[in-house]
């Protein structure tokens, strides 16, 4: 994917650029709002990582508003030290697709960038999801693995659906909490881990090859084979 990173902090920008390139993406970098707006408007990207506070007269919000007013709908992930809920709402209202506060873990950033880029592609309504021998029918709400039916609770079904929709992609605990439970808080206990572990009991345990993998210090990933 082609990703534009607009970030003035050299260390943060270097860290993000390196990570995204290692993940196999083509990355452009702008260190101020003016250059960022120019690049974003003149070239085509799959996603933009945008800092809110930028030098050069145009901050992240202005940049995005200008871009959206030109009918440019490139998915945008805000990256900002402004962590208050109101700031988050402001970013999303201006047309941002997601909002990540600093400090952040790279895994979280990568997962979210890939998430919004995929969403941006607009795959249309899906009725069937499949990863390896695991199949999910969204209409009849049934799950089969290797032809064998797996019984899931409604919430387990949604958890698996979310993992399957993001197959091959790191999904963080926060993303699961937001995407599956629609919660915006940090539980102190390992609630998500417990739910994923229960899902594993049903989806992976009876079968030879596991599909749900734990990514250290990041979250989970559903994929066909071990790395």
């Amino acid at each position, binding site marked *: 994917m082609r990703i534009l990173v607009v970030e003035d902090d050299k260390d943060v920008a270097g860290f993000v650029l390196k990570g995204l390139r290692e993940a196999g993406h083509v990355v452009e970098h702008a260190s101020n709002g003016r250059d960022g707006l120019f690049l974003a408007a003149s070239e085509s990207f799959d996603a933009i990582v945008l800092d809110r506070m930028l030098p050069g007269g145009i901050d992240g919000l202005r940049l995005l508003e200008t871009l959206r007013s030109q009918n440019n709908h490139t998915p945008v992930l805000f990256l900002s030290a402004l962590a208050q809920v*109101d700031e988050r709402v402001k970013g999303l209202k201006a047309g941002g697709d997601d909002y990540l506060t600093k400090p952040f873990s790279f895994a979280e950033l990568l997962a979210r960038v890939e998430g919004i880029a995929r969403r941006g592609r607009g795959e249309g309504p899906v009725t069937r999801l499949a990863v390896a021998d695991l199949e999910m029918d969204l209409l009849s709400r049934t799950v089969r693995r290797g032809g064998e039916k797996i019984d899931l609770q409604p919430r387990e079904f949604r958890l698996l659906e979310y993992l399957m929709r993001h197959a091959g992609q790191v999904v963080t605990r926060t993303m699961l909490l937001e995407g599956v439970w629609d919660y915006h*808080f940090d539980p102190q*206990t390992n609630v998500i881990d417990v*739910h994923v572990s229960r899902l594993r009991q049903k989806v992976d345990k009876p079968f030879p090859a596991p599909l749900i993998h734990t990514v250290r*210090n990041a979250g989970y990933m559903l994929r066909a084979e071990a790395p």
Partner: protein
Amino acid sequence: MSLATTLQMLGRGRTDPRQRRTPMFRSAGFRFGILYASLFGLSALALAAFLWWTTVGLLDRQTDAAINADTQGLAERYQEGGLPALIETIDQRLATNIDDNAIYLLVGPRFDRIAGNLNAWPRGVTLDTNWFELPVERAGLKGVARLHEFNLAGGFHLLVGRDSHVRSQLRRLLTAALLWSAVVALILGMLGGALVRGAFRATVADVSATAAAIAAGDLSRRVRIAGTDDEFDLLAAAVNDMLDRIMRLMDGVKQVSNAIAHDLRTPIARARTRLEDAAIHARSPDELHAAIERAQADLDGVVGVFQAILRIAEIEAGARRSAFVTFDLSALITDMTELYTAPAEEAGLRLDAAIQYEISLHGDRDMIQQAVANLLDNAVKFSPTGTTVQLTLAASRDGVRIEVADRGPGIPEADRTRATERFFRGEQARSTPGSGLGLALVQAVATLHGGTLTLADNAPGLRAILKLPASSMNVAS
């Protein structure tokens, strides 16, 4: 308020070094005083004018009416009985005039005296006007008189008048009285003005002295409430409420800075030590990686604490009231139960939920979620294996009650009030991971919604009761 106390207060206000002196003409107290004095003076003036008009004016009008009637009568007598009858009537009237204030003079066509008590036709009386106010001399007495000149048939002229010395006396008397009362009014007005100004200043001085003391750093100062329930008391109470709030906020800031100094230094120091240790002593890349990862986890913990502090601050500032919506609280609690059943079971606990349905609430959905999650987190964290955690949602006329009860160690009664302070960690909690911010956040959320958080004994265990007022409840459903 007596004059003495007012002046005393006025004096105190003056000697207070913290009170800035305003130039007299720009002081609001002075303006109020002047306003009072001018109002007082104006009403005194209006009273005097009225008095003048009703006494002197009435006397004038009465005199004129008497002269008119007299003239009329004499003219009639002349018409009926001619000159002798007129002379006789004049003499008669002069003889019966007890007050000795009547003046008559009848002259012939050549202005020679025929009858009356004036010696000669006074100078200044002409024939073109009828009414005069002249000094006259009669029987050796000088005085001022009001005269009316009347022409009779046959070239005779009649002059009828009244000596106005009574009126002059009255006028002098009144003028003197009014002058004196003007002086008294001026003095009273100024005194009253000073009183008003003093009272005004005394009240304002207390407010401004308090504000100055607060500005100088003495946060414990409060405006004195006189107990009269008047407007100034209301103002003082409002100012005091504001100061209480400021003090609470300041305490919060103090607490947070203390906490940052103590509670955040520790994990930062630990992470730093790990990294330094690894940089010096690590013998393999694996050891290095492990040290870095542990340090990273420490720092994530620090970030988590920061986020919690900021969130509490955000809630306490009341900024999140804009995020209030009406939502289905029963559904939210049901979802939370579902989310926490699995971790509870994993910890060997039973989560028992009693949820009353169809309760909706006007509030901050995310914050209520976070608050309930914190209570459940605590319950799951501290409960011994094999016990039950009870979650209750119930609505009554008083409001909504969300209760989480566990069978853990509970909180000793002495610590219960402090348990909701930021960074407070009980003896029992010190060995478990946590930041000591969980209950502080629940408390902040409760306050944001106008509710309360009560910690009670569950014998054994803790009963955390989050009560939200009925006003936040939506009874439309």
